[in-house]
């Protein structure tokens, strides 16, 4: 049981990773895709008839959970909860945590999620057809609420610790890990399931497509997401879920868990500016805060997993911010070049991807980076897979509304 009186700061480590991603279901498949620069972006048949301008997306299928979960456990789950369940189960397995342990030892859940559009619209369609709310059924409310991941997973895994959803646009997953890190660091929790979920269906992304910011490339979907490339023409939506088990060093060592990395810095800021345009001052503040907290110098960071989504303005601003803080030597790539933009999931999945790279001694390529532009030429973008041992990385996430998050993870050293 956690000591709820915070008397000392605790080191915070990562002991489990789970991924339900367009570039692989489970860690092994994801590592293979990251190494080989394999894209998860495909043409999606339902987009054009719905009215989308862009008909491509990173894609995962809905998992079949029958046989694994009871009817009552499944009935309140739509895509965010289903994807997250599969990811969380993998992460818990790796961490060596089973339900018997979770039921007896306080474990929390903070998951990033920022929409349940597919579920809400399915419910509304039913009511419009039947004109009677008593014919909606009992599961829809638990699918419709934005905290659907937390409600479902805390019930299934018998979690007794902190329990809430973090909603912060495309930085949701990153902030979930940051807030979990702070709670454990302060001694308020021993371990927390953190992560991010992103539904994949036309209802979730129609209004985003309507802004005209999605890349259009029906002929070669895998070429569409090209962060930092001069000829980038917009982002590609994607989704799935990523989960990480983070816990105090004492808890991990007591349980004999394998330590995959240590979280050493969390920086954040709000732009307080335009609702969708990025802002370099906000990004710099977040980056510098993470560095300050970690007591690391910019040169200590070996790899930066950039937020870069493949939009003309966003990537340019981030390239300038990275150059200003880290100069032109630090290796940089955006895994969104392969996954597309996993939005609410991205901050968590990209920390998971980077951890897998660090553990397996390589840096995944920023695919489709063929031609630098005036800003990306000033940073060290990895365009081909690089075999390299490294000890420390930083992951950026910047969301609509000007919410910024930067997290630094190091290899664990006693």
């Amino acid at each position, binding site marked *: 049981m956690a000591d709820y009186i915070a008397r000392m700061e605790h080191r915070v480590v990562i002991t489990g990773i789970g991924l339900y991603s367009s570039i692989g279901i489970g860690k092994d498949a994801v590592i293979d895709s990251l190494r080989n620069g394999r894209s998860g972006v495909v043409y999606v048949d339902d987009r054009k008839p719905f009215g989308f301008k862009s008909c491509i997306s990173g894609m995962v299928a809905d998992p079949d959970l029958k046989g694994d979960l*009871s*009817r*009552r456990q499944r009935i309140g789950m739509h895509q965010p909860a289903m994807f997250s369940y599969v990811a969380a189960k993998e992460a818990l397995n790796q961490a060596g945590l089973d339900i018997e342990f979770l039921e007896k030892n306080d474990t929390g859940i903070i998951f990033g999620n920022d929409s349940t559009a597919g579920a809400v619209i399915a419910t509304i369609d039913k009511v419009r057809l039947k004109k009677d709310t008593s*014919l*909606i*059924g*009992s599961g829809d409310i638990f699918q419709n609420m934005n905290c659907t991941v937390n409600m479902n997973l805390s019930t299934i895994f018998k979690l007794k610790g902190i329990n809430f959803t973090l909603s912060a646009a495309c930085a949701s997953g990153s902030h979930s890990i940051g807030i979990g890190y702070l709670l454990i660091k302060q001694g308020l929790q021993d371990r927390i399931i953190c992560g991010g979920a992103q539904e994949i269906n036309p209802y979730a992304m129609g209004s985003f497509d309507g802004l005209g910011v999605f890349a259009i490339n029906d002929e070669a979907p895998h070429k569409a997401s090209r962060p930092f490339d001069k000829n980038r023409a917009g982002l590609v939506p994607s989704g799935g879920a990523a989960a990480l088990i983070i816990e105090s060093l004492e808890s991990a060592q007591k349980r004999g868990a394998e330590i995959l990395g240590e979280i050493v810095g969390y920086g954040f800021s709000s732009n307080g500016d335009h609702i969708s345009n990025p802002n370099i001052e906000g990004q710099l503040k977040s980056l510098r805060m993470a560095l300050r907290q970690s007591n690391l110098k910019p040169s200590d960071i070996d790899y930066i997993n950039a937020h870069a989504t493949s939009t003309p303005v966003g990537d340019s601003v981030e390239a300038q911010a990275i150059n200003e803080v880290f100069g032109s030597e630090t290796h940089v790539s955006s895994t969104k070049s392969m996954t597309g933009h996993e939005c609410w999931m991205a901050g968590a999945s990209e920390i998971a991807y980077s951890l897998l790279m660090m553990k397996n001694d390589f840096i995944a390529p920023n695919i489709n980076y063929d031609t630098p532009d005036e800003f990306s030429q000033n940073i060290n973008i990895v365009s081909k897979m690089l075999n390299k041992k490294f000890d420390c990385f930083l992951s950026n996430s910047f969301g609509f509304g000007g919410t910024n998050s930067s997290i630094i993870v190091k290899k664990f050293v006693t």
Partner: protein
Amino acid sequence: MTKDKITQTTIKFLSEEFEINPQEIIPENNLKETLDLDSLDYVDLVVVIEENLGFQPTREDFEQVVSFDDFYNLAEKRISKS
């Protein structure tokens, strides 16, 4: 709809919805216990009854229903009225 047809239809949709062996749905068995219903499940029970038999049982209706046979009798009465 005859009682026999109601019975066959009900066994099919209840076993599918509540994921139980159709052979457990025999007239004298307790409906709540056999289907392992909690308060939320009754909401879904109303939905599948409306979908498959075309009427909506009320809370008062369920107070009268103990066995599956009670339900078949209720359904026969409600369907014949509509």
